[in-house]
């Protein structure tokens, strides 16, 4: 119990360091603004059919999850490297809390932020959908369950990338470097994956970014590379996850804090 309250205190600290910064609130505001702007835009210049309802809007607005994705990655890439950049790591690690606990608290805070961003997107698009387009009229077979499932797939993608950014953050001690590196890798990965697939390299299926979109397997869908299955992708994701987390822990525990 003592250990748990101890850990919770550390999470409170990490939360304080996230939510006491203006940029966090700017990020949250941007998510809401983007959703509202999207709703207004879709209403005024969208396809003229009056059948668009709240659920259809939510379905479309789920694409805005890229914002939640970007912001979560920023927080994840910054949360460890930032302490090194500020020099505060020296005060953080000389407390009666071992390094594993400190790192775990940071990871938990990142996950909470990620969930918050996703929840914010979900709730604001639900609200905007109802206000701008009105309640669903049963014109489409779409249900709220479908949308939640869609969010679930996106969450897996975000989770993997956030964990990857978190690892980058522990490896590189500069937050600027960690954030830009995380983004460069993530954005270039799409193009590189497309290239590798079009060139027919079979081993490309072992790359993380070939497996992060589990939605392709739904309803007998076609995977990016022939022969990939849902089981294969989940196995790959678990392997990558364990490697990312393991590497972060190992490096953070062993690192000499110098300079």
């Amino acid at each position, binding site marked *: 119990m*003592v250990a748990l309250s*101890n850990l919770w*205190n*550390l999470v*409170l*600290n990490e939360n*304080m*360091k996230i939510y*006491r*910064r203006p940029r966090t609130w700017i990020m949250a505001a941007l998510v809401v603004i983007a959703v509202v702007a999207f709703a207004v835009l879709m209403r005024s210049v969208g396809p003229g059919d009056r059948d668009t309802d709240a659920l259809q809007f939510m379905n479309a607005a789920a694409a805005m999850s890229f914002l939640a994705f970007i912001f979560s990655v920023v927080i994840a890439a910054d949360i460890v490297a930032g302490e090194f950049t*500020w*020099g*505060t790591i*020296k*005060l*953080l*690690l*000389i*407390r*009666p*809390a*071992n390094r594993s606990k400190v790192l775990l608290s940071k990871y938990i805070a990142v996950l909470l932020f990620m969930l918050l961003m996703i929840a914010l997107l979900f709730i604001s698009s639900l609200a905007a959908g109802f206000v701008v387009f009105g309640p669903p009229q049963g014109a489409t077979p779409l249900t709220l369950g479908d949308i939640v499932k869609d969010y679930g797939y996106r969450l897996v993608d975000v989770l993997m990338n956030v964990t990857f950014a978190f690892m980058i953050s522990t490896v590189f001690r500069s937050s600027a470097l960690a954030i830009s590196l995380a983004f460069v890798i993530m954005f270039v990965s799409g193009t590189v994956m497309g290239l590798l697939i079009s060139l027919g390299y079979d081993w490309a299926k072992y790359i993380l970014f070939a497996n992060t979109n589990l939605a392709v397997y739904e309803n007998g869908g076609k995977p990016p590379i022939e022969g990939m299955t849902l089981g294969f992708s989940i196995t790959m994701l678990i392997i990558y996850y364990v490697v990312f987390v393991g590497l972060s822990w190992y490096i953070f525990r*062993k690192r*000499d*804090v*110098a300079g």
Partner: protein
Amino acid sequence: MSQQPVVQLRNVTKKIGRRTIVDRLTFDVPKGEVFGFLGPNGAGKTTTIRMMVGLMSMTDGEVLISGISVNKRFEEAMRHVGAIVENPELYKFLTGYQNLVHFARMIPGITRERIDEVVELVKLENRIHDKVKTYSLGMRQRLGVAQAILHRPDVLILDEPTNGLDPEGIRELRDYLRRLAKEEGTAVIVSSHLLSEMELMCDRVAVIQNGKLVDVRAIREMVAPSEGAVEVAITAEPARRAAEAAEAAMPGTVRNVADDGFTVSVPYDRIPDLVRSLVLADVRIYGVKAASKSLEDQFLELTRGGRIV
């Protein structure tokens, strides 16, 4: 019953690659002592301090804080340590108070009252709810001290604490550290490459060079050498008559007679006799300054001896 030293270093060694940064350091710091850690830049001071607080791993050896091994029981040992490693780098986007709450949460048993008490102690009451980015360096240093003493540690470790402080700030810090050692019995370890500062602040200094302990000495011994002559500069009027009186009292010691004074080379414990002879000669004495071999000279002597280039 002999009292256990608060800090014990036993053969502490750090090797990076094939280079030995810190080489088998062993020393103790008792309760209530201000202990200086002196050495030129790159001698291994900061590395040693970082090993003491667990920021760096040791290649060999052990550090005990109140008898608890930092290597083996880190969390317990750290309950007794307060430290500022280099500049007190705090969260600039938080207020001073939020910073203290942050660090208080990491240590069991710190109440709000204790935080307020510490804030008062470092005289930050008026600014504690302002963001740290608006603080002057002196205020940040005080906030740094506040976070380090929140849990009433047995030992306070400060790495180059006066870096970037103005004379006023240095003086304040020095007085505060001395008081803490005297009144609360806290052991204080201070590293510096500035000798004059150590002279004013510390009870004992350890001199290290190239990662090796060269010497541990009490400051008193260094300032008042027990053997050899010291140069004493006398300012007196009339200088000639005073010089004659000094020469009569201690033949062969007077040098450099000038219009306003002269210097005498005598053993430290003969200085009072010298002064008495001058008073008896009825000259007007304006100044008697024992230019004892300065700490700096001694330090250079110590460190030069061991240097193999």
